[in-house]
């Protein structure tokens, strides 16, 4: 089983989800098996204003560990992340980062700005 640990920069209680990547898709939005897909299926909220279509950055997460167990980012994701506030070297879009290994131990942080940002201003 893979494991996704979610830490909130805001101080909200962290969450841990165990799942089998081979069972993807788990819900209806984001790439099948993506961080967003896993979280939604387990009733853990992650903003995804564009419906998980890689058209905004509201599902921006920072990967603390397990980056090598995630799918590589593609140009569309990188182009969007370039415009995201609070970008870090391990930033990913939750809708695009797919957990690829069944023994993955992924730790992500939901940045405060991802949670509280009122809207994406130009």
């Amino acid at each position, binding site marked *: 089983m893979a494991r996704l640990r*979610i830490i*909130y920069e*805001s101080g*909200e*209680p962290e*969450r841990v989800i165990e799942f089998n990547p081979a069972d993807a898709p*788990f*819900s*209806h*939005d984001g790439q099948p098996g993506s961080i967003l897909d896993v*979280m*939604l*299926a*387990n*009733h*853990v*909220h*992650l*903003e*995804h*204003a*564009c*419906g998980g*279509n*890689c*058209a*905004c*950055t*509201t599902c921006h997460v920072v990967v603390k560990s397990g980056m090598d167990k995630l799918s590589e980012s593609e*140009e*569309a994701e990188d*182009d*969007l992340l370039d*415009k995201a506030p609070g970008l870090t070297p391990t930033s990913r879009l939750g809708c695009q980062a797919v957990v690829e290994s069944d023994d993955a131990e992924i730790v992500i942080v939901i940045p405060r700005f991802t*949670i*509280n*940002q*009122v*809207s*994406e*201003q*130009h």
Partner: protein
Amino acid sequence: MSEPSNSGKSAPAQRATCIATIERIFNHNAETRSLFLRLTGAIDFNFVPGQFISLELPLANESIVRPYSIASSPEDGQPLEICLNLVPGGVGSHYLFGLHVGDSVSFTGPFGRFTLDRSPELETIFIADTTAIAPIRPMIRRALADREHPPVRLHHAAQIADGLLYRSEFEVAAANDPRFSFEPALLGSNAESSAAGAFLLDQVNRRYVAGDDDRKRQFYVCGVGKMVFELRDLLRSAGYERRAVQYERW
């Protein structure tokens, strides 16, 4: 099943939700319509041309979030116009097509960074297929607002005549503005759904890649499917600056 609404136990502070009433419905064709939304209450709703709103749709067992580009301009004020297709098997679009004038919808936003908020400084090419014209429309209005704007061109492709949304509006704009040219392409109802993308790809290649060595242009591409990425790759690999090729794929 999941509940991607505001009810998640771990969900911290949420975005403000807007409530709007459907004031008018306009059917562009059998499968495409515009909804005109007037916000409830004295809300000052600001957005930039190209942005979208995220509708929260209460389906039978869950809520889902679906984005819709704003097809009207900030200068228009309210009602906001969103434009949508009836997607086969698409629960969101079927829900919205079932709504009537007077019904309410809730949404968050605006969102999106595929935007143009001022008249451009470079020759600007807009490329869209079918309903992907929605975010482009207010961008073009903004681009043309300054009468001294550089050349602006719109390539819009669709299979059927009614799929060339806002055609008469663009034709009038082109007739009145020598720096704006509008090039609609009608591919025919028998064309495959991917035909618009293939046509635009070929046209862009001939005009802006093979056609000359000028690389001082910027592009705004919006569409459905891989065509958008193919256009991006074509233009960037041809020498256009990465940031000069903006795109949004649905």
